[in-house]
């Protein structure tokens, strides 16, 4: 079964610091990769996704992620975080080309706390 690992459980940064959150997955075939964000008290929202093509994906709010197939990784980055980025971040994977029926497998999440 596929699994998703997020090694950073809790990250504390100061505003303007750079961010990189790690995500590794275990499935060896074709995958679709996602980062979701959950702001306090709110629902999961999609930050960015990768299906194919350019492995460097740009998302909303200045976030980007890079798919490195050889490392089974899809790390999330942001050059300069803001206090409003305080949230929980989830990496997710589903496999295959028929994304419609495929369930997402989520990582355990990384809680990001940005201090003003």
């Amino acid at each position, binding site marked *: 079964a596929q699994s998703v690992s997020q090694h950073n459980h809790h990250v504390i940064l100061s505003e303007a610091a750079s961010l990189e959150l790690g995500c590794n997955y275990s499935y060896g075939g074709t995958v*679709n990769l*996602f980062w979701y964000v959950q702001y306090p008290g709110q*629902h*999961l*929202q999609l930050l960015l996704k990768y299906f194919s093509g350019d492995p460097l994906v740009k998302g909303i709010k200045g976030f980007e992620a890079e798919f490195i197939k050889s490392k089974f990784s899809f790390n999330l980055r942001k050059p300069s975080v803001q206090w409003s980025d305080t949230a929980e971040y*989830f990496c997710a994977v589903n496999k295959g080309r028929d994304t419609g*029926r495929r369930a*997402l497998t989520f*990582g355990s999440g990384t809680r990001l706390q940005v201090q003003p």
Partner: protein
Amino acid sequence: EPEVTQTPSHQVTQMGQEVILRCVPISNHLYFYWYRQILGQKVEFLVSFYNNEISEKSEIFDDQFSVERPDGSNFTLKIRSTKLEDSAMYFCASRYTGSGELFFGEGSRLTVL
């Protein structure tokens, strides 16, 4: 902006009682899902539903769980006889065919006493 809506936002129930959580997916979406998140743990897949039938389910989704799309708009999750360990936030999600993005509702918090 269209959104997935869920009711109730919070339900408290006694162990052994039946619970129905309701979801209204985005109107033109064709794939529907339930996920849950036990406090402090990861988001876990429960079930996916397409063309009026379950297309995939996890080992969590045992005989105590069922899903239904009784009309053109609602998508419900029923837990027949709740257990303490069913306490969690339950998220409904939907997607439009051909798109990879799941749109999530705000969740229904279930507390089983």
